[in-house]
């Protein structure tokens, strides 16, 4: 591992050289596109210059769409012929992201590449192109609780970067990227990680969730507060649920596509079967289902929690439901409290 340092101006040139060889993605600010008037939207997008890399605010959406787009064609149909959707492009993609999101990708890998012993090749071919450039993250944003979720530290990255005023420090782990940085001054930089969040959660430490927790009155409140918009699912870096839908082109009914689309356990219709039977009609039940998946079920299957504590669900909820608070309530209820 070698480290380098640059002035921001010099690093801007390095960034330019990156763009010559790689597609570069990172959090980007879209002026005036936020949820409220005069608010900006921060989301992952292709970057055209270093100045587009947003470092001041958390991104509203996670980088998961790089491997799991909201809408992805799986097959094209011509009559009875199935043709696999070709890869959009080839070549490596550099992604600037924070440690929680790198840990989020670990969880996406678990679902798409490990669960059931089957590898999802649509995911894999996108995933194989990604190279992580970790943005050092030593200070929490609002609603972050990565330390409690043990996902504040990440090791799976090609390079780590500190943006410190006029200086940029880089630690290079993947030697194939070293040539990019050779004109930087040598440095002893290694990335730090946030060690304390303002938000802390107590993750329930139980091997078996007691059955009474499934029907605990603490969930009733969410029946009224949750509006089943699914923003917590779509903004979550670890939500992987999807539905597969076929469509045909109106100008040529013999041609069409099979697509997969993001779906979410908070949304109506998520469990609805032909004939109308469905499960978890109540929104509180959906909240319980999601919460247990993120902090209990997944751990039973994979040995670590699904939630990485990025707090995007709390940022996104229009009803100001706090998932962090929900986790604390579960722990409190397990200790015999009323879930408050």
């Amino acid at each position, binding site marked *: 591992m070698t480290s380098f340092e640059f002035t921001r101006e010099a690093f801007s040139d390095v960034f330019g050289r990156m763009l010559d060889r790689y597609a570069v993605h990172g959090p980007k600010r879209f002026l005036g596109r936020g949820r409220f008037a005069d608010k900006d939207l921060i989301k992952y997008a292709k970057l055209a210059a270093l100045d587009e890399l947003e470092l001041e605010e958390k991104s509203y959406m996670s980088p998961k769409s790089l491997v799991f787009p909201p809408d992805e064609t799986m097959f094209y149909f011509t009559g009875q012929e199935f043709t696999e959707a070709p890869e959009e492009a080839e070549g490596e993609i550099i992604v600037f992201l924070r440690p929680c999101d790198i840990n989020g990708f670990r969880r996406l890998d678990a679902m798409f590449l490990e669960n059931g012993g*089957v590898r999802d090749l649509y995911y894999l071919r996108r995933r194989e192109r990604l190279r992580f450039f970790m943005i050092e993250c030593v200070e929490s944003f609002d609603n972050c609780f990565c330390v409690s979720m043990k996902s504040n530290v990440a090791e799976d990255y090609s390079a780590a970067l500190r943006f410190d005023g006029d200086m940029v420090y880089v630690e290079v782990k993947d030697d194939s990227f070293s040539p990019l940085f050779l004109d930087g001054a040598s440095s002893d930089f290694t990335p730090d990680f946030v060690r304390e969040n303002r938000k802390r959660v107590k993750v329930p430490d139980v091997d078996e969730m007691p059955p009474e927790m499934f029907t605990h009155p603490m969930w009733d409140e969410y029946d009224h507060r949750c509006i089943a918009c699914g923003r917590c699912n779509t903004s979550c870096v670890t939500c992987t649920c999807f539905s597969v839908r076929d469509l045909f082109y109106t100008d040529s009914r013999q041609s069409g596509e099979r697509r997969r689309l993001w779906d979410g356990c908070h949304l109506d219709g998520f469990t609805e079967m032909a004939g109308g039977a469905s499960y*978890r009609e109540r929104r509180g039940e959906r909240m319980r289902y999601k919460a247990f998946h993120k902090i209990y079920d997944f751990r039973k299957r994979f040995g670590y929690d699904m939630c990485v504590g990025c707090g995007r669900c709390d940022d996104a909820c229009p009803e100001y439901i706090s998932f962090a608070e929900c986790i604390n309530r579960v722990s409190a209820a397990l200790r015999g409290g009323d879930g408050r």
Partner: protein
Amino acid sequence: MKENPYRPFPAEITCIRPESDCEFTITVAASAEMTPGQFFQVSLPRVGEAPISISDFGDDWIQFTVRAVGKLTNALQDLCTGEKLFIRGPYGNGFPMGILAGSNLIIAAGGSGVAPVRPLIKRGMDGRLLVRSLQVLAGFKSKEGLLFSEELEECRSCGRGTITIDRPQEGWCGSTGLITEHIRALSLEDPSDVQFVIVGPPVMMKYSVAEALELGVPEDRIWVSFERLMSCGLGKCGHCKIDSTYICLDGPVFSYSRAAGLID
């Protein structure tokens, strides 16, 4: 793309047989290793894909019995012999054939739940599944909804089956009453020495299991099969997850001792 697990293969339809007013059985020419209780993801391009359980199979054919209640199943109804059905699978664990072999096997199925247990019934009847005794209880809403009537009648006529409809109906001289009543009326020599398979709509399964438990059948000798919405059959899409269990991977067949702890 090598080994894309989502790519179905075309299977030619060799027969479509109506079963009831809205149910029909499609036979396709295809061969695959499978076991009763498993399912396939069945699709038609531009219409959609859905999990459908195997209602019987042989070396080079598979049957699916379908109720026309959704987008795909309605479209399946319009297919003709010689056309192609697109399938991938089989998925799921299927019934525990090793455990059922040699047992006093009781199968209680309701409505379209008879379809997934039909391979069990047929194998139990013709000796491919060797059992000490076989008892089949098949319940339907009405005589119009009866499935596999000839096969079930054969079962009944040799004293190994009961076919019941919920309420008496003109032109029906067979058994009536809910299947739960018929489970309650079973006289079991040793309830701890049976294997009890229960498949049907959720409400039917719930109360049938309760009756079986009441008879004294141990939880780990009751087998149920779950039906859930699925988009993949591979443990990816998330629709069929209950707790840490994926119905498509770990099920759809569970012993009740495990199923009892699954809370949707």
